[in-house]
C-alpha cells in the first residue's frame, strides 16, 4: 500500500479532503499523513473507506466528523466536536479534546488519551468512547446507546436524562444528572470495559470502574412528579 503526505502549510485543506473522498476509495493508498494541521477545522471529515489518516499536531473543530470505516489519529489535541456523528471506524486523539467530543456518534470507537471537555458523548447513539483522562460537565447527556469508559473523573450532571447508553467511570463523579444511577458491575460489564480499554491501548483495571445507567423513570411522563426530577 502506498503512503501519501499532505502538508496543510502548503496545500489547501480541500485538497486533502477531496483526495480522502475520491482517490482514497481506489484502495491504493493505505496511509495518509497530514502535516501542519495548525488547528484547521474539518480535517478528514466524512471519510467512508478503510484508510489510516495520521494528523501530526493540533486539529480544529469537527476533526474526523461523520467518520465511516477509516482510522483517524490526531497526535495533538482536537477542537470542538471531534468524531461528531461517527458511524464506524476509529478516531484516536493522543492529546486532549474540547467540548462535544463524539457527539451523537452512531458507531465506531473514539479514544481520547487526555481529558475531554464538556458534553463529551452528548446524545451518543451507539458509538463507544474511551477517555484516558477526565470528562467535563454534562457528558453523556441524553445518550441513547453505546458505551463510555472514563478513566479519570467526571464533572457535573454526568449522564443526565440518559437512555440506554452505559457509562463506566474509574475516578470521582462530581454529580450524576437526572435519572442516572450507579449499578452493579456484572461480569459482562467488566469484560466490556476490558475490551474497550484494550482497543484503546490504555492500561487500567476494569474491575475498578463503576457502572452508571438510566433509572428509566423519565421514560414515561408522570404528571404527579411536579418538577421533582
Amino acid at each position, binding site marked *: 500500500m502506498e503512503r501519501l503526505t499532505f502538508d496543510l502549510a502548503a496545500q489547501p485543506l480541500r485538497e486533502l479532503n477531496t483526495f480522502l473522498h475520491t482517490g482514497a476509495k481506489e484502495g491504493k493508498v493505505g496511509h495518509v499523513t497530514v502535516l501542519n494541521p495548525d488547528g484547521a477545522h474539518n480535517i478528514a471529515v466524512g471519510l467512508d473507506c478503510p484508510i489510516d489518516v495520521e494528523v501530526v499536531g*493540533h486539529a*480544529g473543530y469537527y476533526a474526523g466528523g461523520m467518520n465511516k470505516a477509516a482510522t483517524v489519529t490526531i497526535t495533538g489535541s482536537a477542537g470542538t466536536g471531534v468524531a461528531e456523528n461517527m458511524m464506524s471506524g476509529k478516531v484516536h486523539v493522543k492529546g486532549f479534546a474540547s467540548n462535544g467530543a463524539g457527539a451523537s456518534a452512531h458507531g465506531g470507537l473514539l479514544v481520547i488519551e487526555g481529558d475531554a471537555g464538556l458534553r463529551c458523548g452528548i446524545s451518543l447513539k451507539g458509538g463507544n468512547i474511551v477517555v484516558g483522562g477526565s470528562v467535563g460537565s454534562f457528558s453523556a447527556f441524553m445518550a441513547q446507546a453505546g458505551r463510555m469508559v472514563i478513566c479519570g473523573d467526571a464533572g457535573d450532571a454526568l449522564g443526565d436524562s440518559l437512555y440506554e447508553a452505559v457509562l463506566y467511570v474509574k475516578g470521582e463523579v462530581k454529580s450524576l444528572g437526572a435519572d442516572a444511577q450507579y449499578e452493579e458491575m456484572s461480569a459482562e460489564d467488566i469484560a466490556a470495559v476490558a475490551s474497550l480499554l484494550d482497543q484503546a491501548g490504555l492500561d487500567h483495571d476494569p474491575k475498578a470502574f463503576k457502572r452508571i445507567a438510566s433509572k428509566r423513570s423519565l421514560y414515561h411522563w408522570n404528571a404527579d412528579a411536579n418538577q421533582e426530577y
Partner: protein
Amino acid sequence: MCGIVGLLVKTPALREKLGELMVPMLIGMTERGPDSAGLAVFGNPLAETERKISIYSGLTEDGADFNWLGLGHALKEHLGVAVSVEPKGNHAILSFDVAPAIIKRWIAEHHPKLHILSTGRSIDLYKDIGTPAEVAARYGFDKLTGSHLVGHTRMATESAVTPDRAHPFTAGEDFCLVHNGSLSNPNGIRRMLEPRGIRFETDNDTEAACRFLEWRLREGDDLETALQKGFEELDGFFTFLMGTPDKLALIRDPFACKPAVVAETDDYVAIASEFRSLAHLPGIKHATVFEPAPEEMYVWNA
C-alpha cells in the same frame, strides 16, 4: 461568535516584538469576527501624576483627517496644559500631567463626537470596524511594543456594528475587557450600576461586564475577588479576557459555551479562542497547550 486573543511576554527582549507576534493571532480569528477588531496594549507606565488617553475621531466630520495637533494646541491655549499628541489616522494618544477628567470634560464640551477609548498610565487602545487585517494595517499593530495585550475580532450579535461597540471595552483607568459570548442580564447590571453614578456609553452587553468588574476593583476587591463576584452576578455565555497594568486574566462561564485555548512557554503566555491563532508562534510545538476549565480563574502576571 467572536474571537479573542491575548499575549503576555515573559522574556523582556520579546516586548519589542509584541505586536509582530500578535498580528497573525488577530488575523487568525477573522472567520470568528470579520466585522470589527481592536486591541489594548500595556507598556511601561507613565510617571505617577501623568495620564494618557486614547481617542477615536472616526465619528467626527473630519474622520481620519481630524486635526489632532490642533486639538493639542487648543488644550494648551484653553486649559494651559502641555499635551503630547501621537496621531495615528482616526486614533490619537494624548499624554499630559493633570487629572484626566479636566481634559475629558473640555473635549466632551468642544468635540462631542470624539470618543475616548481608554484612560490610564499604561494602556493604549485601538478599535475600529473592518476586518482584523485591515484594522491591524490601519494602525500598524505589528509595530506595537509592550508587555501584554488583549485583542478581539467581532461578529456582532448583541448590538450594532460601530467602532464604539467594538472591543476592547474599558472602564476607569488601565482596565480593559474583551468578550466572546452574550450576556443575558446586562440591563439588570446597568440598573444596579447607574444609580451608583456609573455612566454607560453604549447599549452593548460587554460594556456592562466591563463596568461591573472595574467597579468591584475600584471598591477595593482584588482581581480574583472581583472575578468571583462576576461569576455570581453575570449571567450568560462568556469567555472574558481582561488586562490590567500587570496582569492578564481569563474566565469562562460554567457551561464553557465559548472556546479558549492557552499556549505557554518559558517566553510567553498566549491565549486565543482557537488553536489556529496560536499555530504560528515561535516554539509552539513544544508549548504547554491546554483548554482553560469553566468557572476557573486564570491570572498571569506581566
